């Protein structure tokens, strides 16, 4: 049987917000709202925030990027029909969200519940996907949490990463911002380049 060839990727360009976050592009608030939370107020688990910047080869913040996140809930359950425990999910847990970098500062941020470990799924993590002008194919990476020393050491994805690059996938506690606050900067190119995944 012949296989169909994959449709090639193209950059999302600088105006990605029109399609994926219309309010940021300046379209009226009512236009196609995409603001549903990753984890609504009825979701169990520790509330966390992750903020960061995306830096280019010169160390300059990328201010036109868009990031998507995908994660399990606090019990390690995904909001997807293939998860055998899907029926135990909170009704307001989506596990997916979209964040844009600030047009001035480049800062992005998300609020969610801390993910749990899924059976056979390694250490708790957030999956990220990054698109922007100058990024021809969306970049996948993961955010792990610094507290989970043992689980991270046993994680099959982290295990494949050269040890000196592993820290690029582990968020830092942001003490100044309070409990549950993390920083995760992404370096697209150059010193400290983030590990990107071909999944």
């Amino acid at each position, binding site marked *: *049987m012949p*296989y*169909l*060839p*994959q*449709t*090639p*990727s*193209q*950059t*999302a*360009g600088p*105006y*990605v917000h*029109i*399609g*994926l976050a219309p309010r*940021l*592009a*300046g*379209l009226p608030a009512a*236009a*196609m709202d995409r603001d*549903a939370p990753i984890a609504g107020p009825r979701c169990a688990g520790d509330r966390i925030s992750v903020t960061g910047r995306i830096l*280019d*080869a010169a160390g*300059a913040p990328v201010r036109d990027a868009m990031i*998507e996140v*995908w994660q*399990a809930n606090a019990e390690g359950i*995904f*909001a*997807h*029909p*293939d998860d055998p425990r899907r029926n135990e999910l909170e009704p307001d847990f*989506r596990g997916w969200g979209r964040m844009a970098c600030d047009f001035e500062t480049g800062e992005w941020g998300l609020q969610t519940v801390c993910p749990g470990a*899924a*059976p*056979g*799924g390694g250490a708790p993590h957030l999956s990220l*996907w990054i*698109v*922007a002008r*100058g*990024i*021809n*194919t*969306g*970049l996948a990476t993961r955010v792990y949490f610094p507290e989970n020393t043992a689980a991270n050491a046993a994680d*099959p*994805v982290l295990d*494949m990463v050269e040890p000196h*690059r592993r820290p690029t996938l582990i968020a830092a506690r942001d003490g100044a911002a309070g409990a549950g606050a993390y920083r995760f900067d992404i370096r*697209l*190119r150059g010193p400290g*380049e983030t590990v*990107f*995944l*071909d*999944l």
Partner: protein
Amino acid sequence: MTGAFYPIDRRRHPPAFDDAYKSTVARAPQFPLLSLETPPAERMGPVFGHADLGERDNDLLRNFAAPGSDGPVGERVVLHGHVLDEDARPVPGTLVEIWQANAGGRYRHVNDGYLAPLDPAFGGCGRTLTDAQGYYAFRTVKPGAYPWRNGTDSWRPAHVHFSVFGSGFAQRLITQMYFEGDPLIPLCPIVRTIPDPEAVEQLVARLDMKAAQPFDALAYRFDIVLRGRRATPFENRPEGG
């Protein structure tokens, strides 16, 4: 658990670095991507339903125009097609989002300052779910070409940006659709990041007279192929998985 995805076919997708598209130079990772069989987390992805959408979200002729307005200026077109995977299996119920410039080549975006005017009746943003057979359709106007800061003679061919989810996060795709017969296509540095001319052809929508709406709108057909999934009959499952 459904299977891992077939690998991304790097012969058909653009490389990260291409100095003719200058924005890639500071933003392309230098290290190779870490290739892994799709882990369970990224085999799954968000699911959207009709409750997430508004009635006119797929009709760009109407979704921004004030009630009673004549609608946007420009050539009225239907954009439609089939979302499939490499095994030719339809991808039903998946979210397809589009964005585009207006007929003059101007984006309704706070950061776009091109000379061409905004159209008060055009937002340039649409979304829909594929139907049970994997088909989608939008109604819009054909976008205009516009110059951009790369070389001093860099012009984007008329194009519509497409974002597609598929059934797993690792299937996520953003691309651009071009219009058959546009002489700017082979000149465009962004198009030319794709090394294989045959792969470029896959991004060129074909005029589809059978789908045109008589005395109303022309139609273009754009099919989208996402990564396929490996069958899993012999997969070793983790205990309890």
